C-alpha cells in the first residue's frame, strides 16, 4: 500500500502486523530459554549432586505396609503395584465422593430455593458453614469424632447391619458367587432392552402425541430383568457384618470402611456439596423467569416445563463449574495424608524414604493430572452434545 508520507509503504515500526510478529517471536524465545534453562539446570544438579533419579526401582519389592486397599496387596509386591494400590484408594475416595456430593448438593441447592422458609434457611446455614471452614480442619474434626466413638463392642448399630465405632464403619457388601457372570450378561441384556424400549417409546410419544412413559418403562424393564436374574442365577451373596463370639465382640463379614476413609469421605462430601448446592441454585436461577412464565402461559404443567424448558437450560450453566468441583474434590482428597488414609500422596511420601523422590512426585502429579483430565473430558463431551446454535 502506498502512503503519502512514506512512498515506499508503511514504516516497519508502525506496521501492526510486523509488531505482532516481533512480539510473538520475542515471547517464544523467552519461553524456550526459561524452560530449557530449567531442564538443563535440573539435569546438571541431578548428575553433579548424585540425586537419585530413574524408574528402575518400580520393579523392586516395596516393603511398606498399606493399611487398606481395593485390591489385594502385601508388602512383598513391587513399588509399581503399591503405587497402583494407592492410586486406586484415591480413585475410590474421589468417585464415591463425587457421587455422594452431587446428590447431596442437588438436594441442598434445591432446598435453598424452596418457598419453605425454614428449609431454605437451613440450607443457607449449611452452605455458609461448610464452605467457609478450611477442609483440613473439617477432616480433622470428623476424624476426631470417629476416634472418640465407642469401641467395636459398644459402638452404634443401625438396622442390625450397619456398625459405626472407633475402628470404622461396617456395612453389608455383596460378594460374587458362581452365577455372577451369567447374571451380569443378563443384566447387560436388560440395560440394552431398557434403552431400546426408552428410545422406541420416546419416539412414539413425539410421533403420535400419545403419552408413552418412556422413562418409567425403561426403568421397569431394567429392574424386572435384574430381579429375574437374581432369582434364577443367585449371582451375589449379600454378606451382613456379624458379631463374633468372644470377649472382643469383633465384627466379621461385609465391608469395612476405616475411620480415616470414613472421615475423609464425610469431609469431602460435606465440603464439596456446599459448593455444588450454590452451583445448582445459580444454574436454576440463571434461567430467565420469563421462561417459566412462557411455559406456563402455553399450558405446560410443572413437570413438562421443568423437563423440556428449565432443566435443559440450567444444566448447561451447571455442568462446567460442577466438573470443576469434581476436580477440586479429587485434588482435595490428597489431604487424606493428614488423617492417615493411604491415598496416593501419603503412600508415595512413605515410598520416598527409599525410592527417588523426584520420580515419585512426578508420577503422582501425572496421575492427578490424568484423573482431572478424564473428568474434564467427560464434561467437555457433554457440553458439545448440548450446545445449541446462536448461544455460547
Amino acid at each position, binding site marked *: 500500500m502506498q502512503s503519502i508520507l512514506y512512498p515506499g509503504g508503511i514504516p516497519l515500526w508502525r506496521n501492526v502486523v510486523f509488531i505482532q510478529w516481533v512480539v510473538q517471536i520475542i515471547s517464544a524465545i523467552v519461553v524456550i530459554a526459561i524452560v530449557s534453562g530449567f531442564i538443563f539446570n535440573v539435569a546438571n544438579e541431578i548428575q553433579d549432586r548424585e540425586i537419585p533419579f530413574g524408574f528402575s526401582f518400580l520393579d523392586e519389592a516395596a516393603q511398606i505396609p498399606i493399611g487398606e486397599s481395593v485390591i489385594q496387596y502385601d508388602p512383598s509386591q513391587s513399588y509399581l503395584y503399591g503405587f497402583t494400590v494407592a492410586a486406586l484408594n484415591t480413585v475410590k475416595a474421589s468417585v464415591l465422593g463425587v457421587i455422594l456430593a452431587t446428590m447431596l448438593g442437588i438436594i441442598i441447592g434445591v432446598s435453598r430455593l424452596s418457598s419453605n422458609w425454614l428449609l431454605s434457611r437451613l440450607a443457607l446455614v449449611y452452605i455458609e458453614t461448610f464452605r467457609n471452614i478450611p477442609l483440613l480442619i473439617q477432616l480433622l474434626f470428623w476424624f476426631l469424632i470417629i476416634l472418640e466413638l465407642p469401641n467395636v463392642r459398644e459402638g452404634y448399630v443401625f438396622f442390625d447391619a450397619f456398625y459405626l465405632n472407633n475402628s470404622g464403619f461396617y456395612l453389608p457388601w455383596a460378594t460374587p458367587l458362581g452365577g455372577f457372570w451369567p447374571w451380569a450378561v443378563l443384566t447387560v441384556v436388560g440395560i440394552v432392552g431398557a434403552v431400546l424400549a426408552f428410545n422406541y417409546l420416546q419416539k412414539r410419544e*413425539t*410421533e*403420535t*402425541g*400419545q*403419552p408413552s412413559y418412556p422413562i418409567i418403562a425403561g426403568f421397569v424393564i431394567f429392574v424386572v430383568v435384574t430381579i429375574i436374574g437374581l432369582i434364577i442365577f443367585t449371582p451375589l451373596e449379600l454378606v451382613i457384618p456379624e458379631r463374633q463370639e468372644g470377649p472382643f465382640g469383633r465384627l466379621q463379614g461385609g465391608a469395612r470402611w476405616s475411620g480415616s476413609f470414613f472421615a475423609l469421605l464425610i469431609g469431602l462430601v460435606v465440603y464439596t456439596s456446599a459448593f455444588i448446592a450454590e452451583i445448582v441454585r445459580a444454574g436454576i436461577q440463571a434461567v*430467565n423467569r*420469563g*421462561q417459566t*412464565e*412462557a*411455559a*406456563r*402461559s*402455553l*399450558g*405446560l*404443567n410443572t413437570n*413438562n416445563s421443568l423437563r*423440556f*424448558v428449565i432443566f*435443559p*437450560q440450567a444444566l*448447561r450453566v451447571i455442568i462446567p463449574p460442577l466438573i470443576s468441583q469434581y476436580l477440586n474434590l479429587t485434588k482435595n482428597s490428597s489431604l487424606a495424608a493428614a488423617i492417615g488414609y493411604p491415598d496416593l500422596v501419603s503412600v508415595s511420601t512413605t515410598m520416598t524414604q527409599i525410592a527417588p523422590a523426584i520420580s515419585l512426585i512426578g508420577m503422582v502429579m501425572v496421575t492427578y493430572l490424568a484423573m482431572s483430565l478424564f473428568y474434564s473430558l467427560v464434561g467437555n463431551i457433554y457440553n458439545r452434545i448440548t450446545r*445449541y*446454535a*446462536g*448461544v455460547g
Partner: protein
Amino acid sequence: MTTSLEETTVTNPDIRKIPLEDRDDIIVCENVYKWFGDFCAVNDVTMSVKRGEVVVIFGPSGSGKSTFIRMINRLEEHQQGKIVVDGIEMTNDLRNLDAIRREVGMVFQQFNLFPHLSVMSNITLAPQRVRHLPKAEADELAMSLLERVGIPEQAEKYPAELSGGQQQRVAIARALAMQPEIMLFDEPTSALDPEMIKEVLDVMRELADTGMTMLCVTHEMGFAREVADRMAMFDEGQLVEIDTPDHIFTNPTEARTQLFLDQIL
C-alpha cells in the same frame, strides 16, 4: 402454498360483524385487587371484554396494566374480586387454571422464546405435550403458522439467530399453536427496533380480523386508533376510563386521560 390464519385459529371472523352489545362476555373482572407488599398494583378494577373484541390498555408506566393482563392467565394471582374467563372462574383449582391457560395465549415484551429449541420446536412443544398432537400434525400446524407470520424459511433456526421482529412473530405463532380463544399482548413492540414494529403490528392487525379476542398493553396509538374496539386507560392501579378510540382521542371523560395523551402524542 398459502394458509389463511382462519384455518389455523379456532375463532370466527364473522363475530366482528355482530355489534359489540349483542355479543357475550368472554372475560369478566369484578372488583379485582392485587397488592405487592403495601403497594396496590391493581385497585378495584371492574371491566368485561366481549367475544372477538380488541381492547388496547394504555397508561403511564407502573399503572398496573401489565399486572392486570397477567392476572387473566394467572401469571399474577388476584387477591380479591372475581375473574371469569370464557365461563371458567379463576380459582385455586388446578383444573380450572389449566383450562384457562389452554384458552389464553400470551405474548411477552421480551419474547421469552426457548433459546435451546429451534423455531419449529418452540412452536410444536406445547401442542405435542399439552394437546397430544402427533408430530406430523404439530409440524404441519407450525409450518402454516410460520407462513402466516411470514417467516417459514426460519423454521430450523434458533431464536438467537433471528431479529427481534422475527422472534416476536415466532412468539405469536407459538401462542397461536395452542389455538387460544383469547390473546394477551404485554407491550409486544416495546423491545423492538422501530423498523420491526410494523411487521409485528401487521400480524396483530390480521389476527384481529380473524375474530380473536385480544387484550393489548401497548403505546402504539396508531394501532389502537385503527384496530381497537375500545381503549382502557389505567393509572395508579385503577381503570380510569374505558371507551371507543374515537371518544378517547377526541373527547376523553377524564382529565387524567387527556393529560397522558398530551404527554405521549
